[in-house]
């Protein structure tokens, strides 16, 4: 199956604007909110959400970045290693409403690792999860609070998020890889 | 077997003593060479088909360690002699650093008794100590040791530092007309050293033994040789500077001789850090390459080979120094020095012939007539009437060193796994086969 584009640049923008509205609605404004993006593509998404809110509410929301490599539950079984990147959270997260941002929500294991990492950094009032794409297939009892787009997928499909900040273009594509089943969930 | 005769047919006979080289037969009777020539036949004689093989005088080793008494876990006279025979040696001179050391006639006689009982087919000649207990302080009774059969004197391994003691030793040795066989090392300078002082030592973080530590003592001994008129034999010489010192002394007519080892002629200090075919980064710290004097630089090897070709170097001696596995399976700095050398000597040395560094005849001279001249005992020749000590060689046969096959108890060699070209096929000592390879054709 050739690569198929699911979202283009303006689709992504519209989804983010909606998510930003939902965040403000749920938290009754932008007070006491902080964004933490999961590296790599959660970080520009968090920055875009902060920018959207700034244009609506004239409030600067702090944005941090989180590297979860050291918290993954499969570090000891990976056949290859990954570069540990820097976590950058230059503000206190204690008693804040922390919005964790990631690009693709899949098994839930990354989020589990991110939650562990956040707990080591402080004690937020709440942690909420915002994702651009929810593709299903959860392996842990974790759900997202804000979803840009639900995309049902088969396990052998590959969702690729490209963001202009890191990949030069904005798009979300799907591609089927060899050997899996075609069942849609 | 001594009464029966032995006929070697169609050998390429090389006798460095007479400079003869011919293809022919050798007839041995009653332990002596009875005649050489063409088409010899002898009824009832055991016959060796030596076509394709070289027959030369039996090898003579001026420097080896048999470890008995005292260190039978490393080697015994029986196992050492078996290894020597396999290496082509018919006469070997054993160093006195046993426990107790060979510093009195009683212990020398004891060693000779064991030798004649356990190793009747290899002539074992003891070297006596220079000082009691090899402690470097009091001279032994050298006349007594000489009459017990010692062929020279050495405190090998614990060189005599006190110049006055060495001078007195030479005076005494001169009267007996026996050589002082000196391990030349200024231990104040070499102290704590683990290997050759050079770039490899720096690379490995090991302390170096400078060439000067040897050369200073060679120079001292030469001066004492001139002073006393004694015969000086510099053993296991390893540096370019020492070679030049001996060359100059010989030119001045001094009674100086010397030997070098097969490993110092073929391996450089780089061997300590690099085993053949291992990646650059896996530093070996190979304790089997730890030896004293240490493996030196390529320039030293070049100078030693020049010394052999121009006659400065008289002999090649194995410095066969067997040790236990435990003594080598440890940190390089804690490993004991020495190489088990009998069984690889000829194959290793043939590499110098195959690469054209020295001629086969020169090599054989260094293994036979060269050391025989120092021993002055009439061996090292194939002349009729001489004791039938003969080594049969296949210079083209390739084999791979495997320490598991060693007859020596010492498995400590940097040549394990090396492919060598040149094999001792048989060793005949006093007319008897002391060793033969499976391929020997005998009827």
């Amino acid at each position, binding site marked *: 199956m050739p690569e198929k584009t699911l979202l283009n640049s303006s689709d992504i923008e519209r989804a983010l604007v909606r998510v930003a509205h939902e965040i403000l609605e749920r938290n009754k404004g932008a007070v006491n909110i902080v964004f933490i993006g999961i590296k790599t593509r959660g970080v520009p998404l968090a920055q875009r959400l902060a920018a959207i809110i700034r244009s609506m509410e004239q409030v600067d929301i702090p944005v941090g970045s989180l590297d979860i490599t*050291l918290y993954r539950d499969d570090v000891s079984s990976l056949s290859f290693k990954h*570069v540990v*990147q820097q976590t950058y959270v230059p503000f206190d997260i204690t008693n804040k409403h922390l919005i964790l941002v990631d690009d693709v929500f899949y098994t839930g294991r990354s989020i589990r690792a991110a939650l562990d990492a956040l707990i080591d950094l402080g004690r937020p009032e709440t942690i909420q999860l915002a994702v651009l794409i929810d593709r299903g297939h959860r392996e842990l009892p974790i759900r997202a609070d804000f979803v840009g787009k639900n995309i049902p997928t088969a396990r052998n499909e*590959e969702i690729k998020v490209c963001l202009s900040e890191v990949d030069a273009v904005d798009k979300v594509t799907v591609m089927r890889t060899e050997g899996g089943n075609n069942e849609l969930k | 077997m001594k009464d029966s005769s032995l006929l070697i047919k169609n050998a390429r006979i090389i006798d460095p003593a007479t400079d003869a080289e011919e293809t022919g037969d050798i007839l041995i009777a009653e332990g002596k060479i009875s005649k050489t020539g063409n088409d010899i036949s002898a009824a009832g004689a055991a016959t060796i088909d030596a076509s394709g093989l070289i027959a030369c005088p039996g090898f003579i080793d001026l420097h080896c360690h048999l470890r008995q008494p005292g260190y039978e876990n490393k080697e015994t006279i029986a196992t050492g002699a078996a290894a020597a025979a396999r290496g082509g040696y018919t006469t070997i001179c054993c160093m006195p650093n046993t426990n107790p050391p060979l510093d009195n006639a009683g212990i020398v006689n004891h060693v000779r008794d064991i030798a004649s009982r356990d190793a009747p087919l290899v002539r074992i000649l003891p070297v006596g100590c220079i000082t009691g207990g090899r402690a470097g302080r009091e001279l032994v009774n050298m006349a007594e040791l000489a009459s017990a059969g010692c062929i020279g004197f050495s405190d090998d391994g614990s060189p005599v530092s006190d110049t006055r003691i060495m001078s007195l030793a030479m005076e005494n040795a001169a009267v007996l007309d026996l050589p002082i066989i000196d391990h030349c090392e200024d231990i104040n300078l070499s102290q704590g050293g683990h290997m050759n*002082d050079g770039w490899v030592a720096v690379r490995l973080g090991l302390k170096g033994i400078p060439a000067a530590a040897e050369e200073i003592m060679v120079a001292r001994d030469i001066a004492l040789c001139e002073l006393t008129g004694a015969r000086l034999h510099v053993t296991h010489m390893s540096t370019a500077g020492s070679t030049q010192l001996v060359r100059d002394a010989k030119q001045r007519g001094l009674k100086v001789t010397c030997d070098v080892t097969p490993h110092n002629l073929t391996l450089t200090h780089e061997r300590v850090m690099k085993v053949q075919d291992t990646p650059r*980064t896996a*530093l070996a*710290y190979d304790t089997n390459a730890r030896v004293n004097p240490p493996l030196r630089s390529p320039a030293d090897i070049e100078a030693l080979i020049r010394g052999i070709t121009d006659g400065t170097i008289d002999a090649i001696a194995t410095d066969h120094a067997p040790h236990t596995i435990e003594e080598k399976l440890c940190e390089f700095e804690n490993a004991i020095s020495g190489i088990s050398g009998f069984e690889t000597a000829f194959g290793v040395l043939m590499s110098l012939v195959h690469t054209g560094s020295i001629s086969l005849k020169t090599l054989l001279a260094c293994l036979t007539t060269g050391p025989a001249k120092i021993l002055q005992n009439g061996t090292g020749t194939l002349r009729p009437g001489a004791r039938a000590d003969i080594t049969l060689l296949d210079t083209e046969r390739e084999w791979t060193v495997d320490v598991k096959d060693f007859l020596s108890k010492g498995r400590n060699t940097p040549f394990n796994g090396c492919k060598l070209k040149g094999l001792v096929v048989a060793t005949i000592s006093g007319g008897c086969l002391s060793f033969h390879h499976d391929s020997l054709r005998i009827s």
Partner: protein
Amino acid sequence: MSLSESRPGTATRETLPGPSIDFWKHRHVLDLDDFSREETDLVFEIAEGMVEILDRDVKKVPTLRGKTIATMFFEPSTRTRASFELAAKYLGADTISLDATKSSVAKGESLIDSLRTLQALEVDAIIMRHPCSGAPYIAARSLDTSIINAGDGCHAHPSQGLLDIFTMKQQLGDLKDRKVVIVGDIMHSRVARSNIWGTRHYGMKLVLCAPPTLIPHGLPEMLEKYSLNHVTIEHNLDSAIENADIIMSLRLQKERQQSGLISSLREYIQGYQINMSRLAGAKPDVLVMHPGPMNEGTEISPDVAYGTRSLIEQQVTNGVAVRMALLYLIAGGKNR
């Protein structure tokens, strides 16, 4: 390509944040002679992530949970051992430490036997210090376990070399054309040797400064043999430190005087101590390092050691971060 540069995310499996490291081939860390520039930079990049963890209130991540790291020191040491143990604990590993200077080794157990015991206990990595050069190489050849060399004889101290260069880069940024002087007992220094190898990738100048008796004879030939052209040897400290960006002073062991390698402590101090008046002849912003432990008043004066130009405390902190990075690379992502 820089490592932090991102590749498009793929999500057939859970997206991993960082690029994968397929060029890291080391099972052991024995010396820096077999570290490529890429590998050295990788250690530094990961160490930066570790520095952030060291700034937290809760200095603990679960990365090596369930792994056991053993330290086996055949030679007394406090700082290197503490640094490695902290690094292992911060990464969530369990640690056991064997003081081999007191254990059965003193009773004559051989190196190999001691190490085999550790292997039988199924530890995931052994951090080893030994007074004999090359001992970790014997261990690496004899065992299946990963070995990290924490200093062997006069040969190598790779984690120290890495933390030194990490500290230099942290202070100076690009090291190209910078000048670093290592002064002191070069002859016996494993720190100097590992720095020689580690710095070779960075286009900098490394000057080794010592009295002739403390420079091994074979050093110039070794430098030539491996084309380590960035290294020069200098006996005069005052000319060595001209235009230097960093001066690293090495510990002078008192035994060196007893063995005659230096004629007197006083003479050594006059010629080679790093003190304020010496620094007056260097650049005003020159920085000073020391691998520790210091002999204050001998190779370095206290006012320099604790002064504003001193990086000695940063070295200690960076040491933990760099060792965390090494442990992550060696003990993480591996199935026994």
